[in-house]
């Protein structure tokens, strides 16, 4: 009965590779998000998306792209991975102006 689930929980890969992180929510929420938590634990919004609008944080490189096949899913694709992409990535969801519910995070490590 997991509310927001991300897969995989850990991802170790080589520089230059392309990878995806999947996110699914079963809460019936209308908006989903991706956040990045760096090595100093600082959390920053990357994207927010509902069925009407994608809002992209302007500081996010265009190697990162969100893909939403339906309202319950928002996957994160990353091309040409770099060392600086190593972080924990969190998916979250909310309904209208309600609080956000987070997934357990995906720790991405670039070798």
């Amino acid at each position, binding site marked *: 009965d997991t509310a927001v689930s991300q897969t995989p929980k850990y991802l170790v890969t080589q520089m230059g590779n392309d990878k995806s992180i999947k996110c699914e929510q079963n809460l019936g929420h209308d908006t989903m*998000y991706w956040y990045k938590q760096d090595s100093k634990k600082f959390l*920053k919004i990357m994207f927010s998306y509902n069925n009407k609008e994608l809002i992209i944080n302007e500081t996010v490189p265009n190697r990162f792209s969100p893909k939403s096949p339906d309202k319950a899913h928002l996957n994160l694709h990353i091309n040409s991975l770099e060392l600086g992409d190593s972080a924990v990535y969190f998916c979250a969801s909310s309904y209208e102006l309600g609080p956000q519910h*987070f997934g*357990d995070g995906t720790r991405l490590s670039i070798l």
Partner: protein
Amino acid sequence: AQTVTQSQPEMSVQEAETVTLSCTYDTSESDYYLFWYKQPPSRQMILVIRQEAYKQQNATENRFSVNFQKAAKSFSLKISDSQLGDAAMYFCAYSSGSARQLTFGSGTQLTVLP
């Protein structure tokens, strides 16, 4: 742009005592929401408490309560009767009424001493 500041990188409290974590924010909007999230070592992000800016009454959730001072743009979290399980990183966060994404502070690492 909105900013959230947590000026205490680390705090400690004795078990069963009370501790207050500080948070200030900057915004020009009148409609917004404030949150405290807890992140234990398991790295889960757990919502502790939520405050709507239009509500004058301070939010409470069991042992957790806030002191919301709108004019001063201050939003502190008080944890009463601290328990070992309260040990975690605590993040203050802001969202506006129009843009739903959260802006986080840098976090306060809380240690609970037995």
